[in-house]
């Protein structure tokens, strides 16, 4: 199965931990995982961020990670600031992800 998740809150929110754990379990069970970071969610994959090693771990396990380049740019986050392997993408890729994944979960709100 292909699992997609959208994260739109920053790393201090509990959502980050939930997304990490869900993704980790799905990968361990042999499923494919696609994550998309948008709005404040882009902070999760900034390399300097405390939580970013967890997302590096998901990348190493084969998850695909993309972020919304526009919302990152608005927050002063360049491609170079992000974890290596994270795609600096856009809404088109998010739309494709929703279309292609078997289950799509959204983590947002405050």
């Amino acid at each position, binding site marked *: 199965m292909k699992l997609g998740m959208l994260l739109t809150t920053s790393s201090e929110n509990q959502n980050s931990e939930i997304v990490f754990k869900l993704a980790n379990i799905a990968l361990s069970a042999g499923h494919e995982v696609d994550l998309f970071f948008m709005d404040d969610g882009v902070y999760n994959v900034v390399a300097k961020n405390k939580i970013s090693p967890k997302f590096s771990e998901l990348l190493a396990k084969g998850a695909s990670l993309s972020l919304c380049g526009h919302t990152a740019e608005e927050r002063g986050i360049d491609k170079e600031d992000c974890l290596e392997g994270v795609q600096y*993408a856009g809404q*088109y*890729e998010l739309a494709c992800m929703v279309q292609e994944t078997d289950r799509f979960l959204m983590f947002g709100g405050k």
Partner: protein
Amino acid sequence: MRLARFELFYSPLCPTCPAAKEVVREVAEEEGIELEEINIMSPEGENRAKKYEIRGIPHLVINGACHILGIPTKEAIAGLLREAQKPKEIKPDRFINIKGEVCPYTYVKSKLALEEIEPGEVLEIILDHKPAVENVPRSMENEGHKVLEVTQINATDYQILVKKK
């Protein structure tokens, strides 16, 4: 004008390479062209030489397209430079200026414009939203269209040429 770029492949063991370097450095300085000297003995240099299928050194690549093997003359470089900077014979069938638009409108407007032309025709897109410079061509290719060129035309604007599938 297209920005020019020189890539000079050399080896520290090659006796003719220093002479080639001298000529290329001189032209690069005179014309204000970015020059990169690549040691083919390094792992990165070896990979890049493979990409261009370089079989001998010194070897100069201009704008990733024109090649000179051996010690180049200034005249030969000037000739190829003119060739490399000549605008290509691509005549767009439709033109859109979406400067000021941000993602996802950059993609949406490009896609709508593409719907108005026939398969095989070319759309010229001018935009200035930096993330879109990568995103629009990537999504176009994903849809099966052919991205012919992505060129930075001045400090802020980019031109993208897409051939409809």
